[in-house]
């Protein structure tokens, strides 16, 4: 421990915060993003060093031990996780961040240097404890659902919304009680911890697997807000700045996701969507005719196209066909075809997930186009190839105001001159709505496993010349 004035300390914290902001700013382009992430990590290192130098008196060896254990675990997790498992990883990191913030707040009131009497400090402790604990258990449940440890189907308790409302009200009452200096008691804190851990479980458990991206983004925001709360507890500006940056980021992503899914946040959080056992809506006109074709025909269409747009959905990742699609795309590009990818915001299991999965398969990022960029291009495109995507290509969302997906932003695949849909069967998508795209005259269904179909097409195209 060195004598460092809080002015000098805060100047270093300002430097850290500046590096975080520049780092996030550099995420505006894939070309600068890696450098930005490194700048942010340097900012973190600066904050850690100045904190140790100023505060650590005893227990240095314990803190180093914590670094070593946490560092090894963090390194192992980041190194060995599959890219498809990224949502789970972010969920579990959220849990750790939220948990750490809660512990900081809890510790401060349990082992105070001098009794805490300020109403604002007490309120901050209550806030960080509640948000941190909710993030902790909520993220663990989200992790469990994404990992398949817990059923991804919504688990619905009777009267759950009333139960949650009662719990929430009780939490607010005890949080206020903890904050009033004359009333405050350590037992209120224990009650708050317990109830917050429980409500964290209860709010995530009724949410269906397909809505998990929204939940993970929201919990990401919570973990930041909990950190900012811990900053108010410790009067530490760098915690407040960084926490609010992350809080804002999580909220923006949450909004983007709910918009792309055509849902309100309230609708997602009340849960239960996808609870019914499979959707059977399409039974009425089971026998509507679709054009079906084989890989040879599909290869013929693709081989003579001048422009092709691939529309990948999560089915592509499930079939592990990213590398095959890149191989096919490269083959087409060598023949002079213009190839692009249209990525819907909910194509993966978290925001931007599909882009990472395709980047892993060496698809160049400048060929990955988002909704706004690509939608005007379908009209000028010879062939659109839909792989493992369904609801996000359904033109009903534009035209039929009675459809549950009406108003949802979709990829205008139906505007392309020819459409090839790779699909296992005619089963409807998550929304349980029949996809009108499949019945269009210009649409050709290529049934079968996506990986096999793509490999088949690649082979046939090679045979063309």
């Amino acid at each position, binding site marked *: 421990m060195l004598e460092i004035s809080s002015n000098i300390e805060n100047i270093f914290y300002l430097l850290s915060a500046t590096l*975080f902001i520049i780092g996030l700013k550099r995420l*505006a*382009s894939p070309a600068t993003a890696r450098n930005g992430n490194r700048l942010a990590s340097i900012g*973190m290192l600066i904050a850690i060093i100045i*904190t140790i130098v100023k505060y*650590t008196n005893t227990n240095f060896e314990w803190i180093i031990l914590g670094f070593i254990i946490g560092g090894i675990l963090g390194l192992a997790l980041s190194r060995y996780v599959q890219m498809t498992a990224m949502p789970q990883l972010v969920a579990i990191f959220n849990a750790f961040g939220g948990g*750490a913030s809660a512990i*900081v707040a809890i510790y401060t009131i349990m082992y105070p240097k001098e009794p805490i009497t300020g109403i604002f400090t007490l309120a901050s402790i209550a806030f960080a404890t509640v948000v941190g604990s909710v993030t902790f258990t909520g993220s663990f449940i989200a992790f469990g659902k994404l990992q398949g440890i817990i059923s991804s189907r919504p688990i619905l308790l009777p009267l759950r919304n009333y139960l949650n409302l009662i719990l929430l009200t009780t939490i607010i009452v005890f949080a206020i009680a903890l904050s009033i200096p004359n009333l405050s008691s350590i037992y209120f804190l224990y009650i708050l911890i317990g109830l917050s851990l429980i409500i964290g479980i209860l709010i995530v458990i009724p949410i269906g697997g397909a809505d998990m991206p929204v939940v993970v983004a929201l919990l990401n925001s919570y973990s930041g807000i909990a950190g900012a709360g811990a900053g*108010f507890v410790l009067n530490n500006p760098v915690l407040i700045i960084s926490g609010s940056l992350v809080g804002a980021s999580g909220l923006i992503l949450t909004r983007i996701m709910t918009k792309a899914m055509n849902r309100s946040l309230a609708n997602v959080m009340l849960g239960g969507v996808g609870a019914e056992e499979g959707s059977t809506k399409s039974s009425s006109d089971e026998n509507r005719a679709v054009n079906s074709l084989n890989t040879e025909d599909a290869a013929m269409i693709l081989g003579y196209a001048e422009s092709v747009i691939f529309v990948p959905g999560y089915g592509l990742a499930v079939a592990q066909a990213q590398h095959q699609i890149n191989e096919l795309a490269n083959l087409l590009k060598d023949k002079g075809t213009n190839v692009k990818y249209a990525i819907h915001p909910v194509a993966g299991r978290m925001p931007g997930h599909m882009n990472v999965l395709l980047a892993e398969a060496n698809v160049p990022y400048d060929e990955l186009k988002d909704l706004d960029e690509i939608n005007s291009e379908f009209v000028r495109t010879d062939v659109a190839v839909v792989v493992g995507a369904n609801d996000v290509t359904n033109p009903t969302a534009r035209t039929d105001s009675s459809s549950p997906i009406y108003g949802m932003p979709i990829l205008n695949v139906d505007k392309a001159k020819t459409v090839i849909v790779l699909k296992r069967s005619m089963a409807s998508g998550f929304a349980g709505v029949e996809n009108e795209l499949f019945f269009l005259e210009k649409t050709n269904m290529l049934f079968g496993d996506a990986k096999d179909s793509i490999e088949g097409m690649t082979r046939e195209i090679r045979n063309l010349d």
Partner: protein
Amino acid sequence: MDLLPLIIIFVLSLFIGYEVITKVPPTLHTPLMSGSNAISGIVIVGAIIIASNSNGIISTILSVFAVILATINVVGGFMVTDRMLAMFKKSKNKE
């Protein structure tokens, strides 16, 4: 620090966060989540401060546990973000 400056910092940071994050393209939203997640690991600072003051077996365990959690968050978050961003490549022959 006084309360008011902290609140000013909080509010202005939210605005900066909003401005910076809305400029991140959808392609990078997953690295944004894992990267901002690593930044929220800044609570490691708080964990170090409480661990530096603890003097009892339970309080030390509690605070070192916070250090461990935050370190996983920081190290894992930055490393996995770097791993992802390394995979983003531009097309070779851009016409």
